[in-house]
């Protein structure tokens, strides 16, 4: 009897096989399966919803255009995450290089396309507000991490990927994954403590 994961993998392989055979509409299943997960990761990196949305869409398109080089026996989602993460890193570098938006401007732009959405707490509006402030502090702290630490902590905490999977995505040794995770968490913890 197959496990849920095995069934899921088989279904995904069928879709990918169909896409590789020329049925582009089958790609919809892949997009719908991963869109929110990839989007959340990219958002964590760039902290702007519109940019995250565009980058995520670009990641899917790029994966589609390069599907010929993807081997079906490999893990599609680690391959996809690598594409998405690389696009996000490139975007951040360009943003820093050109200095098109300062950090403060980015915060303002959150009001339009980003920022923490209202988390409505039915019973206590005060708790809702506190939680929103906490999340904003966390995201501000995350922004202060170096890109490589930010990347590894997002892959671990958001997706729950193993060190091996993170190592494959980022193309670094597992030992490096472990040390970056440790320092990322430690710095995050310290920043959160400072901002209280």
């Amino acid at each position, binding site marked *: 009897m197959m496990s849920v994961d095995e069934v899921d993998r088989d279904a995904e392989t069928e879709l990918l096989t169909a896409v590789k055979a020329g*049925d*582009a*509409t*089958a*790609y*919809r299943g892949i*997009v*719908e399966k991963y*869109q*929110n997960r990839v*989007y*959340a990761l990219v*958002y*964590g990196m760039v*902290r702007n*919803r519109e940019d*995250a*949305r565009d980058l*995520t*869409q670009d990641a*899917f*398109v790029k994966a*589609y*255009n390069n599907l010929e080089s993807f081997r079906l026996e490999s893990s599609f989602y680690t391959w996809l995450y690598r594409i998405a993460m690389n696009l996000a890193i490139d975007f951040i570098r360009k943003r820093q290089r050109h200095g098109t938006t300062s950090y403060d401007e980015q915060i303002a732009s959150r009001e339009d396309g*980003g*920022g*923490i*959405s209202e*988390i409505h707490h039915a019973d206590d509006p005060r708790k809702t507000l506190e*939680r*929103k402030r*906490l*999340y*904003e502090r*966390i*995201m501000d702290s*995350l922004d202060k991490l170096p890109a490589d630490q930010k990347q590894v*902590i*997002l892959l*671990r*905490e*958001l997706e729950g990927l*193993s*060190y091996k999977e993170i*190592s494959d995505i980022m193309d670094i*040794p*597992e*030992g*490096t994954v*472990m*040390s970056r*995770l*440790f320092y990322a*968490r*430690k710095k*995050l*913890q310290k920043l*959160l403590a400072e901002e209280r």
Partner: protein
Amino acid sequence: MGMTRLEDWLRRIAEDGDAAAVDAARALLRTDERIPEELRYVLDDPEDRPGAADALLFLLGEGESLVAEAIRAEAGSAMDDDLTANPIEGVPVADAVRAEAGTTRISGAWLADAIPVDEAIRAEAGLVDVADAVAGALGFGIPMVQGALRWGAGAVDVAEAVVGAGPPVAAAVRASAGRVEIAASVLVKVGVDVPPVSHAVRDAAGTVAVADVVMAGIVGADLPEGWMAGVLDRELPDAVHVKAASRIAASSLLGAELTGLASAGTRLRAAVEAGAGTVSLWDGVAKSIGIADPEAVTGWDGAAVRAAVLDEAGSVDVVRRVMAKVRRSSAAPSERPEPRPANSAYWVAAAVAVAATILIVFGFSGIERMPSPGRPAPDMGAPGMVFAKADEIRVDDLNYADDATVQVIQEDGADAAMIIWVDEGKTL
């Protein structure tokens, strides 16, 4: 009686000093070219003729040398025929050889060549099992290391260590230990001071190094910081995790740090997910990859499905139930005739009309006269009425607002008209 050889006469002389034999031997000896000329008259001297005869026999290859006999007597059973072929002067040689070789049987060949001590030692020393020694030195006996060493390292060839050729432990541990790195200092601790082993194992160990934790277990060092993440994420090998976790549990500072790290990660996830929200990207992706209609599905025929469902579904009569649920407006005039069930054709239309947009009449509750088929509608300044004939069923796509009042009025008689009133703005 055949000619007796010189050797025969000499043998008689050596054994019992036969006088007749001496004459014969002397005569033959004088003309025998195998014997050096200076020795052809040794039998003329009556002193020790047996000894002379024996020596002459040795020269002729017929007898054993007394020297050889002496060595054999000294060396015991270690002698073989090679000694007679290579006579050695002096008894003490045997003693020296025995002292060197111990109890190992030495072949005569060593006398000419180097002593094969390493072979002797290997035969004597046997094999040494290092598994227990290493495991004991590690302090906490990682089962996999013990098993790996015993299986792989097994025995160490002491002979090679003695002669300096280098033990095969490196290859054995490399084959067995896999990704576990055993630092050179650990090996030094157990007396296996072979630096290349640590390099060999490190090459094979891959990217996860557990040396720090192993060393922490041995030498009492603090837990390396990077390993906190490994403990938190359960990514360390089991035996190492147990060791590291126990060290954390024993330290309140380390425990607090671990708790802090865990909570930072959890809160981060919540924050990112709250900030990101959700997206639906297929439309954009579809257009980017050249799909004109994002909703299209290759091989899918929606019309056929619709036809199949309608065919199987057939028709239903839910009028009674629907009308039971439809509430009347409080402004409904009591003098208006109660709608009575008529033939089912009209009620099907009525049931549909309740859920549909009115095309007939809007908002009049004070109409005085019900129009009937063939009778023109009174001019009330309202949109014109469209009546269906009694034998016609007219189904229109109708919608009405939540706050509209719908009334279905059926005149008496099978041919009567069905009138639907919609009062927008009036709530029930």
